[in-house]
């Protein structure tokens, strides 16, 4: 359990705490800044422009600690990887029946065309439609469609991650579920290249492979391996088994979804004492 859950979880995971989805919370000052940054006209300046500043001022990749502090206190936007079942629970918890599918800012602004993978929650819908009139392709969908959309993203092999709109003393309201990959997602790349971990946290889970079931599975060509965007799956050519590097695993559950024998399951991260500080 990382500090998000300790401070905002009320004994559970922060994103499953219903208190964080209180509609009044979304309208409070501490969080409304994030709404203009993430769904209003500031979106591009913040999400992509902010990164250029990091690039210029981070002279040494061995000292990412300072940027962790900036990310956790000033960015008003942190995320955490969630597996499919938690993503579905989040969508059930969100107040209102309207969701808006927006283009992925990271993918668009790095030349990967417009991919509509960012599922913003109800309070955002009107802000986006009003303040970003040039986004004509954003689509408003219902809760039922949103649940289907999550499942489709899981089939495609995109990592679900839930993002908040400001970490204030009163709460940490989730605002969007993004579907990221290591190749083009800003915060994931910040983690992988710079070691800035406070942009995107690892999930609350770690994958575990059951060797007996794995031995009955795909053997020579393990299909779980290319599904892992973080390179956490390893395969031994001697016994034809895959295993998970727990320190690399983000707990997204993508490998589990394709295992033909159901050999992969998600363990609670706290099951491994060694992972107490790996978030």
């Amino acid at each position: 359990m990382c500090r998000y859950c300790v401070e905002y979880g009320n004994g559970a995971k922060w994103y499953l705490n219903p208190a964080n989805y209180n509609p009044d919370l979304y309208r409070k000052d501490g969080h409304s800044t994030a709404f203009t940054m993430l769904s209003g006209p500031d979106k591009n300046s913040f999400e992509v422009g902010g990164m250029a500043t990091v690039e210029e001022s981070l002279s040494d990749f061995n000292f990412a600690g300072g940027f962790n502090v900036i990310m956790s206190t000033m960015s008003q936007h942190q995320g955490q990887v969630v597996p499919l079942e938690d993503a579905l629970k989040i969508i059930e918890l969100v107040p209102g029946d309207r969701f808006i599918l927006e283009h992925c800012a990271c993918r668009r602004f790095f030349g990967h065309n417009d991919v509509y993978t960012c599922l913003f929650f109800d309070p955002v819908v009107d802000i986006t439609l009003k303040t970003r009139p040039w986004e004509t392709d954003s689509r408003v969908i219902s809760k039922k469609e949103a649940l289907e959309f999550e499942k489709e993203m899981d089939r495609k092999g995109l990592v679900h991650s839930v993002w908040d709109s400001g970490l204030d003393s009163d709460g940490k309201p989730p605002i969007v579920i993004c579907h990221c990959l290591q190749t083009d997602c800003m915060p994931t790349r910040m983690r992988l290249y710079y070691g800035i971990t406070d942009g995107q946290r690892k999930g609350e889970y770690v994958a575990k492979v059951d060797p007996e079931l794995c031995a009955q599975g795909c053997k020579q060509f393990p299909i779980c391996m290319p599904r892992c965007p973080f390179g956490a799956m390893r395969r031994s050519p001697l016994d034809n088994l895959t295993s998970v590097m727990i320190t690399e695993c983000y707990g997204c559950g993508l490998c589990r979804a394709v295992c033909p024998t159901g050999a992969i399951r998600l363990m609670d991260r706290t099951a491994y004492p060694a992972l107490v500080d790996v978030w």
Partner: protein
Amino acid sequence: MSPDHYTPRHRLIVDEEACGNAVECLKCVHVCRDHGQNVIGFVNKETPDLEEFVPRKLEEIDHRVMGCFMINCDGCAKCVDVCPKGALSLERAEVPVPRAVINKEPAIIMCSVLKDGTRIVLED
């Protein structure tokens, strides 16, 4: 940050005046994506002020290109070649020689027998 601790990387220098509105071209962004490094992105120059002007298309907003995650840049300079306006240049990082610096005291080798056979006795 001390200059001793500096991770060398190439820098992309963009002449914004020559580039103009980047979103109309984006050749450099796409060439870097196709090269597999994906370190050039584009961003709006200023946050659109809806009270002044309401853009109806992305092309109506002024954009610039920038180097980002330049740790991944391998210096192929395809972006410089592809730019029709000559707005890009690549400042190559100087890699210090020797590349690795060992921050350790010189090792002290303690030997008690010299070449001619005399023994050194350490006294405390």
